[in-house]
């Protein structure tokens, strides 16, 4: 790949991330507004569309404050440690039959590895702020988000086994066509259990209500982000939305056929739009949950992870492995 090509892809990723951030913030405000019997932003620009850009300008022009007692180096670097992995996680996303930043055999692993770096940044931000509230928020992130990595990864194993690959492009390709002549070959149908685990774990992974322990507005004010302001805070915010997009996009690729339309062949030009539409539908559901549910308590959330999600997803991996291994044998025996 030429240097220009790399640069172009990098620029495309950045544009996608920023556009996503702007659109998702607007969408969150409007969706939550509707859920809350409010209207949401409607003053700046048509339908309030320019509200987010104004907010970005505000964040950019704010004084860059750092508490005196904070650990300067860690405090400064933490927002980027949160932001960069979620930016890099765009690399393995497959937007169309030939449309991806790069094709990797282990792309899925890369995406999960990168998103699992985020809690480290959150912990760092909480620790270095030298504020008690931030510290509690950071510690919660360390304890909970890392725990929820486990069911997230385990739930992805089902589709991976079905596709026989960790390459997102192949996982998506394996979901083309139909079962029994009319059911789309989306992995969500046999893997519904894994999908439920994935949906719950990804909500926790992106720190959204009912799992927003590290922020917990009514308890910790804004938790780990307490001492941050200006664009440093903006980066954390952007990373949160970027993470939301990524978990939803991965969910789309694993369970909902990626860029493919059901029943009909998808033209190459339409593929990215289908993919984005599916991803945004997923994000909408996440926002829906966020707008309507109360928050879990820390210990309940931890025990829910260790006592329910992980055993269920582990058992499902074993069951599915047996099913997939035995199915041909049984089918052969029946046909004989």
């Amino acid at each position, binding site marked *: 790949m030429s240097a220009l090509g790399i640069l172009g892809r990098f620029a495309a990723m950045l544009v996608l991330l920023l556009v996503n951030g702007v659109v998702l913030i607007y969408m969150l405000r409007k969706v*939550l507004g509707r*859920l*809350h*019997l*409010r209207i949401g932003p409607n003053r700046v620009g048509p339908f309030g569309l320019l509200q987010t850009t104004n907010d970005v300008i505000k964040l950019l022009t704010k004084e860059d404050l750092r508490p005196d007692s904070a650990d300067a180096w860690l405090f400064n670097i933490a927002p980027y440690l949160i932001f960069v992995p979620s930016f890099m996680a765009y690399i393995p996303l497959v937007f169309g039959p030939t449309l991806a930043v790069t094709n990797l055999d282990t792309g899925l692993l890369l995406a999960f590895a990168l998103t699992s770096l985020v809690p480290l940044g959150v912990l760092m931000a909480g620790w270095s702020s030298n504020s*008690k*509230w931030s510290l*509690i928020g950071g*510690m*919660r992130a360390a304890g909970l988000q890392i725990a929820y990595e486990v069911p997230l990864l385990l739930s992805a194993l089902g589709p991976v086994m079905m596709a026989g690959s960790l390459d997102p492009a192949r996982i998506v390709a394996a979901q083309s066509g139909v079962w029994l002549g009319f059911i789309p070959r989306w992995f969500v149908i046999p893997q519904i259990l894994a999908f439920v685990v994935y949906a719950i774990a990804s909500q926790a992974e992106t720190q959204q*209500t*009912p799992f*927003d322990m590290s922020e*917990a*507005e*009514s*308890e*910790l*004010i804004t938790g780990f982000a307490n001492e941050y302001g200006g664009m440093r805070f903006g980066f954390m915010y952007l990373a949160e939305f970027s993470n939301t997009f990524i978990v939803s996009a991965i969910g789309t690729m694993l369970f909902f056929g990626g860029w493919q339309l059901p029943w009909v062949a998808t033209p190459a030009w339409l593929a990215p739009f289908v993919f984005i539409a599916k991803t945004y539908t997923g994000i909408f559901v996440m926002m829906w949950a966020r*707008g*309507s*549910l*109360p*928050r*879990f*308590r*820390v*210990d*309940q959330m931890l025990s829910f992870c260790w006592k329910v999600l992980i055993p269920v997803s582990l058992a499902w991996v074993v069951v599915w492995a047996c099913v997939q291994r035995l199915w041909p044998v049984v089918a052969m025996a029946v046909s004989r």
Partner: protein
Amino acid sequence: MTDDPKMAWAITAEGSQFPGPLPCGLRCIPRGVDELATEHLVLNMGPQHPSTHGVLHILVELDGEEVIAAEASLGYLHRGIEKLAESRRYHQVPTLLDRADYVSGLHTETAWALAVEQLAGIEVPGKASWLRALLMELNRYASHLVWLGTFGMDAGAMAPFLYIMRDREMLLDVIEAITGSRMMFNYVRPGGVVADLPAGVDAKIRAWLEVADTYLSENDALLGGNEIFRMRMKGTGVIDRATALAFGMTGGCLRATGVDYDLRRDVPYCAYPELDFEVPLGVRGDNMDRYDVRVGEMRQCIRLIRQLVDGMPEGEFSGKRSRVLKVPAGESYAAVESPRGELGIHLISDGGLTPYRMRLRSPAYFNLAVVDEALAGGLIADAIVTLGSLDIVLGEIDR
């Protein structure tokens, strides 16, 4: 050094290994290091905190997420209302009292009017009593709505709050039509009330009664019907009957422990003896019970308002009032069942133009005193919802 976490705060400064000066000189002194050599954290919750319901400052001692001890530090909203009342004439005092419990001012006003009437021997026309009861019930419902919404927010649920505000808006419209104000009513005066029901307000109340049940069930389903919410409320913030009585708790917090005590029924005043209502009770005294009791009270409220609107008598809304009210020397105490509990006014007069001394028995003050007992042993998240379940209004506590 004791191992009993409840005794942590009782340890003297000498026994503490806390480095540096002690915070604020309060009882809440960190125990220093325990067997794991981890330091306890003293967290200043408030006075600027989204969930302390005003300017309340709570010192909590934390071992990780667990609350070891807690202590409320009050006085940030002290305006000297009791002292100011000593230099106000009798008809001017309700203006101050509106600002004590600013979520349900009509209860404080009525308690004041009852105390003055008792001392001065003023007769109140029947209709005025009914109007007072109607307004108090409307205000009780509005106050409980605020509590329900903020309680949901404490638990992390944003949506119910805004649904509840829609409901409350209708109610405040009604109250505004009657009293002319949404918050600082100044409506109940010794001798009666300021104005009769205006034309058309009857239809407004009935329009609200039409939807009140539906809205309440909707809000109850959003919170009490949610499994996450129930999981968090059951068994947390338990206040047993003995503790509640020892701390002088009243209102929903006391009834949640199973003590059947409601001033509206037990020490009747205004129109309540003629009304038919039930008093919901709890069993365990945990957050869920306090939630259920208050939601039950709201259902009773709707019932009461319906009876009050249907049975509103004809007649004068106020007795004869002289321009300058002189109260003979003596003492009186009158209490009403405010949304938070027994709200009493203790009035001492020396026969002059102004009260000699006025004391407000603030129910939320007594209910808040229990935080030391109720918060210790729970997690931070439990502390927040337990505090929310006590339904405190700082204006009334600090006065």
